[in-house]
């Protein structure tokens, strides 16, 4: 008997009963099945990433359109209002509605 088959006892190393036979079968089974699982996991991972990316693009798009139209509307409203402001009060009104709103 070669030393390599008995030295582990000398070293104090133990293994669960029947481990070597069981693990041999388990490792070979692992090689057959995870390939499929890994492939399907990989493809579903890619699908998820694509879905998340599409949602993010859509969300950013909607947000941009909304914010652009809101800004546009408020600007238009203020411009109309500005026509009714007396000349002497205009500077103060301008500060309040444009300058301070941007802070």
């Amino acid at each position: 008997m070669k030393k390599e088959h008995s030295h582990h006892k000398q070293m104090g190393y133990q293994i669960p009963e029947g481990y070597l036979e069981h693990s041999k079968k388990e490792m070979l089974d692992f090689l057959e099945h995870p390939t499929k699982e890994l492939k399907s996991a990989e493809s579903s991972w890619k699908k998820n990433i694509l879905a998340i990316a599409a949602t993010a693009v859509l969300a950013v798009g909607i947000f941009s359109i909304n914010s652009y139209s809101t800004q546009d509307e408020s600007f238009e409203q203020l411009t109309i209002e500005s026509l009714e402001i007396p000349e002497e009060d205009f500077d103060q009104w301008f500060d309040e509605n444009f300058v301070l709103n941007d802070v």
Partner: protein
Amino acid sequence: METEEHIIQHIKNKQLELAVTAISNAYHEMLYWHIRKLVKHHDAANDALQNTYVRIFKGLANFKFKSSVKTWCYRIAYNESIRLVGQNQKLGYGNSNDGSTDYFAHLTADPYFDLDAVSHALHESLSKLSEKQQRVFQMKYFDELTFEEIAKITSWNTNSIKTAFYAAKEKVTIHVMETV
């Protein structure tokens, strides 16, 4: 029992699943013990063995016959073990250079380790060796690999392996004789 020739024949015939099965029949136990001595814990050895199988399976198609299949498998197992040991050391629960206390604390944390007088003396002497000396000593003394095989597995120079082994052997012999 599968032989090296059977395995090579399967690889040449592109029968990779048969080749892995033949490798498993021939070297499974040896690979496990080789890994176990490097990573120490049974659970870690099981993980490294599984990774070794995956790499063997993936690498078989590109096997260049530059070494024996056995040496090639040992090399993969060695690399997987060292990678795992490195990861564990980074996480702070590997054995390291803090002397025999850490070495034994790491060993005895494994439920599949039984420390008696003989194994204590042997491990104590191993704990006093450098990392390189430990690996070389284990591969040469326990796995009965040749210096050339160890050189191919570790990518170390053959002469430095011989030097490390003889220095390690002397230290271990003296320590065990003094202790037991």
